[in-house]
């Protein structure tokens, strides 16, 4: 034709258009495969007469749960049971992360100690704990805890606290009228303390004068809260634990399953964190310490102001994976009766409703979101701590 001689500049030869076409093609293949798998699944379930959907969430669950931090009776719904399990998973993960970090930092520093015995003990701890499977350790702690404690009738008593095979029993606070004032006082005091810390920091930048902000804000929180408590007329009563025929009734109880899972998770992950902390500190050039000393900084200030901030940059990224591992490992608690997500949802709920795909999908969603949240927080923290280049 007439344009035969013209250079071929049709749309198909445009790099941008071609890239777009390929992406649209790829996307439609992905969507089609997803659609096919989904409808196929639906067909198979229908053919086998397996009911689907989340309607069961509003039905009464009919089973009690060992540990619930929100109100839950055995006539609660499956949705409620899910919430209880979610909170149990969340609580064990967060407490585990805090405790593992504390253990990790202490043991990590201990491994670098000049004290021969302390350093060796820390090494033994790390090498033992991180080389044994976590599930095994969980069973060990569970059955070790159970074996070490007395039966309810022969409980150890510490004042109003009781300790036996069934858990740690403490007085249960019941809030009377006027407790709202105490809560308000507490919140108020936290804001006051935050303001104090900000003021102290600004003043130090401006004048170089140091103010013991942390100690005084702690005093502020305790003081204001207690004052509110006194003004409201001490609106708090305690329900004391009492020994009964089988168990202890009344009071609050921390079941041994909780303790075993927490200890297992914290000590196991703590061993890994110890190594990360040690590596982080060793990564800071010795010259930094020497420079700090030659400026006349004391040893603990050298550590706190010079070494640790630089070490943190190396520590945080691998620390994030340890936190993620801990959160996911909390699912092993199901093996020793800790009522977390896997136990309550993928265990009991699945067994009673038969909704395998829904319950497992839900659990995957929860662990996914939990991990992503931890990850996002740690990335934010990492950014905050990273070297600011000018």
């Amino acid at each position, binding site marked *: 034709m007439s344009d035969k001689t013209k250079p071929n500049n049709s749309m198909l030869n445009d790099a941008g258009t071609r890239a777009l076409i390929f992406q649209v093609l790829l996307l439609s293949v992905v969507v089609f495969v997803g659609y096919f798998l989904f409808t196929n699944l639906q067909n198979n379930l229908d*053919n*086998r007469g397996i009911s689907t959907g989340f309607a069961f969430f509003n039905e009464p669950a*009919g089973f*009690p749960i060992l540990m619930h931090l929100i109100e839950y009776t055995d006539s609660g719904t499956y949705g409620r049971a899910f919430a209880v399990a979610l909170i149990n998973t969340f609580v064990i993960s967060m407490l585990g992360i805090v405790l593992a970090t504390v253990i990790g930092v202490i043991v990590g520093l201990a491994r670098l100690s000049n004290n021969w015995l302390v350093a060796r003990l820390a090494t033994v701890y790390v090498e033992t704990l991180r080389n044994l499977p976590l599930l095994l350790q969980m069973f060990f702690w*569970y059955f070790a805890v159970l074996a070490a404690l007395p039966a309810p009738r022969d409980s150890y008593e510490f004042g109003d606290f009781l300790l036996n095979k069934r858990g740690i029993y403490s007085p249960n606070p019941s809030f009377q009228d006027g407790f709202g004032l105490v809560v308000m006082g507490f919140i108020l005091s936290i804001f006051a303390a935050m303001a104090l810390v900000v003021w102290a920091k600004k003043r130090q930048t401006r004048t170089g004068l140091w103010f013991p902000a942390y100690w005084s804000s702690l005093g502020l929180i305790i003081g204001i809260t207690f004052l509110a408590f006194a003004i409201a007329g001490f609106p708090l009563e305690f329900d004391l634990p009492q020994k009964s025929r*089988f168990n202890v009734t009344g009071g609050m109880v921390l079941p041994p399953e909780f303790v075993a899972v927490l200890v297992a998770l914290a000590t196991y992950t703590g061993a890994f964190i110890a190594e990360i902390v040690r590596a982080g500190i060793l990564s800071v050039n010795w010259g930094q310490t020497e420079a700090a000393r030659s400026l006349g900084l004391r040893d603990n200030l050298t550590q706190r102001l010079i070494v640790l901030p630089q070490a943190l940059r190396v520590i945080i990224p691998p620390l994030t994976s340890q936190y993620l591992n801990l959160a996911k490992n909390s699912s092993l608690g199901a093996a020793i009766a800790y009522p977390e997500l896997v136990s309550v949802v*993928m*265990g009991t709920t699945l067994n009673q409703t038969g909704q395998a795909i829904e319950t497992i999908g839900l659990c995957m969603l929860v662990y996914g979101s939990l991990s992503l949240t931890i990850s996002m927080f740690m990335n934010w923290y990492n950014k905050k701590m990273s070297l600011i280049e000018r």
Partner: protein
Amino acid sequence: MKSNVGKLLSTAAIAATISAGATAATLDDVKAKGFVQCGVSQGVPGFSNADVNGEWSGIDVDACRATAAAIFGDAQKVKFTPLSAKERFTALQSGEIDLLARNTTWTYTRDASLGLDFTAVNFYDGQGFMVRKDLGIDSAKDLDGATVCTEQGTTTELNMADFFRKNQLSYVPVVVQKADEALSAYASGRCDVFTTDKSGLASHRTKLANPDQHVILDDTISKEPLGPVVRHGDNQWKDIVTWALFVQVNAEEMGISSKNVDQIKSGTTDPGIKRLLGVEGDMGAQLGLPAEWAYNIIAKVGNYGEVFERNVGPSTPVGLPRGINKLWTDGGVMYAPPVR
């Protein structure tokens, strides 16, 4: 961990298999591969338990063997898949196993909503409680405030909740993933009570250090008819599994056992027995089985009474009385439709 992986895999398998599974003839598949894949427990003595040589035995194992004997004339052509309580239905739904014989209670919800069919009852059971003798308890009504250990993924959990609610008793549940660990928790004193089906209590009690220090309370708080389960929709396969069991019950009723079956087969003049043992006619063909299918079951596995005595009867460590599992002619509820 293992159980979760297994469940995910089998869920994925449901998602991936093309919908042929539901209508495919399990019998053809089984004949093609040459054995019956049977889902059993991870170790309940008397029901399904592997010995030190990996040899399986028990009432449920014999249900699998009877099916294999009916199809192949060889009771050994069975492969076993040990399953936890929570894995069992998914494994059957996904086609990982052909037959589930894992002391599984027949309930409405399971039959109606899981895409499964219960075949027949090979053991009539009921849930009970085991406690330490020194607690001095003799009725389940005295259990107010007790801590109760149980295995996860069973009807036990629900029955227990219903029982305590009905009687307005409070209790603390300790729900452990595997029966063995639940038993360890009970043994270590974490719980006052261990609960499961009474047959299970009897068999678990044999695993405790001092079985004599524990007592099974008389109360039975539920009906637990246990039996083999198959996938919904394959009627031929369901009939085979069902009638393999019925043949054993009928054989006991007619006085035919593995010991005298050959003698009876050659000597009998009873047309009913001749039909059953395949001497006359071809009853097996109706289910796609060899003519001697019933003879093979009785000769290779035995009648129901033999199976009971061998696995859970008073002379075994489990030591269960025959109770309501006696034949209907002896005052029990074991009753099978006639083979004719």
